[in-house]
């Protein structure tokens, strides 16, 4: 039971940076823009968060710096892809590479000192409940904030007029434009929201999860987040489930190695990917379920006509 509880808690925490980044990208893609630069924006967030932390600023300001850094990085993509209408794939990849380089530059000199991490909350009474307390009430505030953001994104997309406009733009920017929505402006806002969320996900890595700075410390999580959006078939709830599945399988395979399971470690390490693909194949059997929420204009530049 102890083992299950600790694995459960580890999964929730491991999934948190993925949830932030993937929820952000979901909103971006719902507006019809494909930003492949999540990895770069996460790294920018991670580096600027650490930079602000070592500048002696309080943790909340460090997080704000990370969010701003992610949003600023995404703005670069926005200018290229939305204003100058360059190819979104190329602009996104450029952002991924650019963010990696910039973050390495910003982080110079921070690698030899540990970061004072954001501590898990200790709620009176609730945290002390056996099992339940450990499973649900002993996380750092950002874990709960990820769930708040899940609620906000779901509510925004499906319960507000602006969300409807955003989805309409993702489906058919021409129609949305014709009835008076400012497609480019709304796409800019979506892209910046995605950047801010990626920056926050990056800061979660460098300030909470593994509280230190190393170059390239996201180690591919930006790409996993990108894949999670496809995996989710563009639905917020499935983003969360996908992140848990991936995180849980990673924890499970490490556990398998540690107890000396008689399976080669190479195979165990591939398990999270295999499991994710297996689930994706199962979901994809229902064609309608996969395509229902797909933003039709995804990746296509928009030129206002007339």
């Amino acid at each position, binding site marked *: 039971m*102890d*083992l299950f509880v*600790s694995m459960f808690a*580890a999964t929730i925490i*491991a999934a948190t*940076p993925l949830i932030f980044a993937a929820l952000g990208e979901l909103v971006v893609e719902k507006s019809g823009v494909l930003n492949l630069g999540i990895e770069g924006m996460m790294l920018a967030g991670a580096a600027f968060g650490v930079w602000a932390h070592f500048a002696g600023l309080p943790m909340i300001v460090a997080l704000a710096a990370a969010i701003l850094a992610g949003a600023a990085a995404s703005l670069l993509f926005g200018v290229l892809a939305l204003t100058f209408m360059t190819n979104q794939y190329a602009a996104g990849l450029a952002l991924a590479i650019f963010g990696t380089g910039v973050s*390495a530059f910003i982080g110079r*000199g*921070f*690698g*030899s*000192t*540990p970061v004072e991490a954001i501590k898990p909350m200790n709620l009176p009474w609730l945290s002390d409940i056996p099992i339940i307390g450990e499973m649900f009430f002993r996380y750092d505030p950002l874990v709960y904030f990820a769930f708040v953001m899940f609620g906000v994104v779901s509510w925004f997309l499906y319960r507000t007029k602006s969300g409807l406009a955003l989805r309409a733009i993702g489906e058919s920017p021409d129609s949305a434009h014709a009835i008076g929505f400012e497609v480019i402006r709304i796409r800019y806002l979506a892209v910046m929201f995605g950047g801010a969320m990626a920056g926050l996900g990056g800061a979660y*890595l460098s300030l909470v*999860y*593994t*509280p*230190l700075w*190393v*170059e*390239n*410390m996201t*180690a*591919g*999580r930006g790409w996993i987040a990108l894949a999670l959006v496809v995996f989710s078939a563009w639905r917020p709830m499935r983003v969360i489930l996908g992140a848990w599945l991936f995180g849980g399988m*990673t*924890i499970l395979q*490490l*556990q398998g*190695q*540690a*107890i*000396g*399971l*008689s*399976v*080669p*470690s*190479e*195979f165990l*390490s591939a398990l999270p990917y295999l499991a994710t693909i297996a689930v994706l194949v199962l979901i994809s059997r229902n064609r309608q379920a996969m395509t229902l929420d797909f933003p039709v204009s995804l990746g296509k530049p928009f030129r206002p006509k007339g």
Partner: protein
Amino acid sequence: MKRATRRDILKAGASAGLAAGLAGLPAISQASEKLKIGVVYVSPVSDIGWTKQHSLGVETIKTEFGENAEITVIDNIFRPQDAERVFRELAGSGNDLVFGTSFSHGTPMQKVAPRFPQTAFEHCSGIKHLKNLGTFEAKYFEGTYVAGVAAGHVSKSAKIGFIGGFPIPDIVGPANALLRGAQSVNPDITCNVIFLNSWFDPGKEKEAAKTLIAQGCDVICSMTDTATGVQVAGESGAWSIGYASDMAAFGNGKHLTAFTLNWAPVYVQAARDVAGGTWTSSERWLGLADEVVQISPYNADLSDEVVAAAETARRDIASGALHPFAGELRDQGGTVRVEAGQVLSVAGIRGIDWFVEGMIGKLG
């Protein structure tokens, strides 16, 4: 890139002639000229870790040669296809000595070296050496053995944990030696192993460390390029062993020691030899005796007795009195691999693909 002028071509011809006169030894052509050195790093120079330790080695060349050495550093070259271009460029632009610092630089260096017979190439972690391509590598397992002796003393659960990148001999060997060191104190100690199957992933490393601690391991040795393992162990109140650089700052007071890498002797010697015209390609495998593998300061909380035991092991390995893989050595399945009174051969260590008795984990 600079375009070759007629003067450059004449100069190149003259130096080639001179070098041919020196029995084909790749020496610098004129003693008055600066020694030109090119270095290729696999990652940016961070504040700790593998590339940092190499950069410290390069620094010692600067200290010794001062104005007489011109050093070009190119970092973040991992992929072989990039590396080949970089090595050709460094050799082509007249560097007398070129260092590659990663296993992945091997194939490109082997391709480039024969085309530039005047240039001395030195490859860290290399396995193949050519007429003008030397290789050097550290005996990491000597370091983990010493750390293992300290771990054997402090482990209360008699379980230690090891995190490695990939199940390759350079990592399996040190994992085995860590346990051998610990078992020299307490024969019942076991070691759980997790391979990340990634060279670099701090997040996964954190989960691996937590998993090992959840399994009851109270000493964690993380042979990866970040301090995450040390940090997680410290947070959980477990002891830790650092690798490459001293990681005490991350250990929350529980950093036992680190086996660190000091490449300075290799770098300085190669520069001296090339400058003096005596460089020949050689294969070097260096450990505690050569001070290439070093043991960083022990944790101040350790008792004198523990430190003395570890230091004895360090001295005995350096002097050759103690061998980490001395018989009788059994593998995981209980089969005797090395008879009593013998030691595992060099080829046996460099190609080790099995776990010693007491290791918990599976090799592919």
